[in-house]
Structure formats: C-alpha cells, structure tokens
C-alpha cells in the first residue's frame, strides 16, 4: 500500500470511530441478531468457491462484532449454521465444521481476547448433531468465557427456532411435573420465554433482527424472539459486504423508535 492509500485508510478508520462515538450519544439496542446470508453467492460473483465466501463472511463477522462492542451493544446473536444446512454438499459441511472448530480453538487458545472485552460465548442449538471434536472445542471455549459478564455472543449452530421453542415447552412441562403440587397455571408465555436458549444464556429481549442477501424470510431463526417489538431489516447486501453503510441506518432507525416512544 502506498502512503496516500495508508493515510486514507487511517483517516477512514478514524472517521468510522468518530461516527460510532457520535452514535453512542443516543439510545443503543441491547440485543441485535444477524442472519449472515449470502456468503456463497458473494463468492460465486467473483468466480470463487463457496467455502471462500464463508471465510470472507467470518472476517465480516469479526468487524461487525468490533463495531457492536464499540457501540456498547450488550448482546449479539448470529446464525452460523441451520439444522437444514446439513443438507448441503458434504464437502461444504465439512469445510464449515472445520472453520468453526478452528475459530473455537483460536478462542480457547486466545481466551484472553474475549475475556478482555468481557464477552461470554454461548453456542446454541442441537449440539449433539455436531462432530464430537467440534463439540469438545465448543465446551472448551464456552468454559473459558462463562464468567464474563460484560457482553454476550450467541452463536447459533446447528439451530432451528422450532426446536428451541419445543425444548422450552419441554422444560416448562418437566419443571411443573417435578413440583410437589402440579399446577398448570404456572405455565405462561413468560415461563416459556425464560426457558429459551437465548434467555438461559442471559440474553436480553431482541431489539433488532438483520438478514442479509435480500431474502425476506426468517428461515427458522429466533422466531419467538423477533415476532414482537423487534425491528426487522432485510437488507439486499450480501453478508461479506455488510458494514457501516448498512448498519448505521439500522441503528438510526432504532434510535428514532426509542425517541418516539419516550415522547408518548
């Protein structure tokens, strides 16, 4: 990189930091979810393999997490792998498992990085469907960060919202059966909410839901959490291209909602 390019990059970075500082002067969402869609289409656009798109997607995830941390967003949930994604070509599934395991091992080895920012890592989903070495890596990474309380990163893999709701219903029924006196009136929507994986991991209510790549469906992500009082943004940008240009308007929209609400 030539020195004018380096200088411009430095200036751009400083302006971005300034912008984030300005945003923190207003209301900041407590919990934001990202359905990181479009990695494969992004790669195919430049004639590359799908797996490379996932690598780019991971790089974007790190950048977005940093932005969220600087903004003071306490909880971020990402949809890394759906239960249905096991239907993908085996080589792609294997590559994704490998990518996930490598990153988890990295987190476990550099546990200090997450601890430095006080981030607790929760991996949510039907863990038993994952290869045993990936499960082991997850347990290690989660164990290292369990005591952190400043912020939460939920990685949903392999996850399906209906499965999460079913487990929550199963839990509330089991809890009621375990009591001395079984009382069905103790089961409410509140008690089901308290038994969702996100809530059990300490997550606050979901304020913003973002899906990239132009798809206008939830596809099994956080259905209970986002069906009420959550602003939903379906942006056309592919996930690897997602950045401040898309995220800042989303934050501004949230702030307008909060300000309007405080006037009422």
């Amino acid at each position, binding site marked *: 990189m030539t020195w004018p390019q380096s200088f411009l990059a430095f200036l751009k970075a400083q302006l971005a930091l300034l*912008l984030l500082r*300005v*945003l*923190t*002067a*207003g209301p900041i969402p407590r919990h934001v979810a990202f359905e990181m869609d479009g990695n494969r289409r992004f790669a195919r656009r430049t004639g590359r393999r799908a797996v490379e798109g996932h690598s780019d997607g991971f790089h974007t995830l790190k950048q977005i997490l940093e932005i969220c941390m600087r903004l003071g967003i306490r909880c971020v949930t990402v949809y890394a792998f*759906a*239960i*249905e*994604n*096991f*239907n*993908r070509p085996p080589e792609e599934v294997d590559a994704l498992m490998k990518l996930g395991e490598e990153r988890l091992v990295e987190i476990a080895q550099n546990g200090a990085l997450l601890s430095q920012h006080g981030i607790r890592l929760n991996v949510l989903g039907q863990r038993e469907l994952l290869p045993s070495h990936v499960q082991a890596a997850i347990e290690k990474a989660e164990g290292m960060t369990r005591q952190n309380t400043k912020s939460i990163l939920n990685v949903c893999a392999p996850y*399906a*919202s*209906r*499965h999460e*709701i*079913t487990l929550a*219903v*199963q839990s*509330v*029924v*089991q809890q*009621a*059966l375990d009591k001395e006196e*079984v009382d*069905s*009136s103790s*089961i*409410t*929507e509140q*008690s*089901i*909410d308290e038994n969702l994986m996100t809530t059990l991991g300490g997550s606050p209510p979901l304020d913003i839901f973002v899906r990239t790549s132009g*798809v*206008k*469906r*939830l*596809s*099994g992500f956080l*259905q*209970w959490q*986002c*069906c*009420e*009082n*959550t*602003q*939903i*943004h*379906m942006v056309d940008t592919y996930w690897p291209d997602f950045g401040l240009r898309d995220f800042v*308007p*989303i934050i*501004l*929209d949230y*702030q*307008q*909602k909060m300000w309007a609400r405080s006037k*009422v």
Partner: protein
Amino acid sequence: MVAYLFLRLLHILYASLVFLKTRLQSRRYSPPQPVTAYRSKVPKHLAIVLVSNDTVHSNHTEGLYLECLARVFTWCRALGIEQLTAYDAEGILLKHSDTIRERLAHHIELPTDESETEPEYPLTPPLSESSESRSHSPDFGELPVELNVTTMRSLKKGVSHRKPREVAVRRRALHKQSPCSPLTLHIISRSASKPAIASAARCLLDDALYRRQNSHDPAHAKAYQLSTSDLNSMLEGGLPSPDFMIVHHVYPQAPQPPLELHGFPPWQITLTEIHRTIIRDVLAPPNHSDASSKSLLISEQAFCHALDEYAGAQFRMGR
C-alpha cells in the same frame, strides 16, 4: 453534549437522504402486473397483518380493517389462494367476526367453526418443513388446546355440502381453473400467538400427568420428552403456516419505520415470505373527506406488487 448535537445532525442528514431516496424511487416506480396476470408462483396460504397506531382505536380503524380484509378476500378468491389468515394484534377482526361472516356471506356458506375448545384438522395438510416428519402419535393433534383461531370456510357456489375430506380433495384439483375458488379464512389476534403455545404446554402437562398417574410405575417416571413434530401437529392443527405475509399499516408514517411482526404467531413463520406495503401503493378510503386522518386502505396495486415479489423469491431450503 457535543456528541449528542452531532447525533441529531446525523439524524437530520439521514432523514433527508431517506426522503430523497423515496422521491427517486417514486419517479422510477413501475406499476405491477394485474391481479389475474400469470405468475410463476402464487401462495397457497396468505396472511394479512393489519397494523394501526398504538394510540388509535376507533370505529374508523375497525372500518378500515374490515374493508381491507374484504378486499384481500376477494382478490384471494380470484387467484385461487386456498387459505387466508387475517391478523391484527388487538383482536379487532376477531371482535367483528360475525360482521365479517355477514359481509362475506355470499362467499361463505358454512357456519363459523370456532376452534377454541377443540382443535381441527385443516382441510389442506399443514405446511411443514421438509425435515419434519409427521407425528408418530396422532393423539397430539387431538388434545383440547385453546388456539384462539376463528375459521370460516367457503364452498364453491352451487356445490352441495360434502364431508370436509372430500371438499379438500376437490379443492386442490380445481383451484387453478376456478375463477372463484373456495377459501378458508382464519381470523386471529395475539391470543393465537405466544399465549396459544402456552396453552399447548398446559395441555401437554395435563396429558403427561394423566399418563404418569395411569402408568405401571408412577414413582419412576421417565424424563418428559416432546418432539418438534408433536408440538407442530398441535399448533399447525389449528393454524397452518402461511407461505406469504403482507404487513399493511392503515395509518402509515413517512418515512416508514422498519418492519415489525406485531406479535404474529411465531411457530408458523419459519419459511413465510414477508412483505410490507409501501405508501406509494396504497389509497385513501373513498368518501372520506377528512384529509388530516391520513388513513390508507390496501389497494389492488399494493396486493399485486406483493404477489410479484413473492413470485420472484427463491427457496434453497438450507442447501
């Protein structure tokens, strides 16, 4: 303080950009295809979500909701859409279900089927994800859960009353050709959403308790297990999942705030394509001289725009 002022400035800049973008989009606006135009894909089950301002609940809102529903109902019949779910969080439509039945009486010939005390098997099979198998235990679909769904079914005019199963078979075969196909209308409010899942859970508890008390070894009961397909047969038994959802604000704001789902039943929206009407596409109610109320009905143009978007959507099913 300085940062706050800069933030307000940023908001003004953002609002201006949004305004300009909306104006530019208006200029480049192209009208959609007409209702009866060929589309490669038409939803089998459409949901219409009607939204008003939180503070405004009046006869005017009720009138708007009823008019919007009547319009969508008519268009759905013309297109051969088999099921229509009408939702509003506050339950205004539910409150007026008798009025709705009277108003659509020339389309609807069967009495209202209230599914508050007993679940119903839908006339068309519930739409479920390819990964879910049917419940091994048909009992789950027969548990008395309060799902709070009001269902009305119309028959093709002139057809004599048949058993529900036969009507369903006939309906599937005819819906593409018939200009006024039979249509099942579900009217729901927030009570069919998370509270219905809680109701299902209470039902499951009662059932589990009953089984435990009647088991051979009640003292050593196994851990309670519930499968997704069993819960699905309870919930979709009363309200199948819509393919497509249109969210319409009857008191739109400019600029439009981001999409929200206003408490629509969460179980049923796994694969639902979601669309919101845009201000450009809607129209003021006729005979309404009070320009300051700024209420808007859903127009045929808005409906067609939504259908065009649905026809263009791609489904990869996880692959």
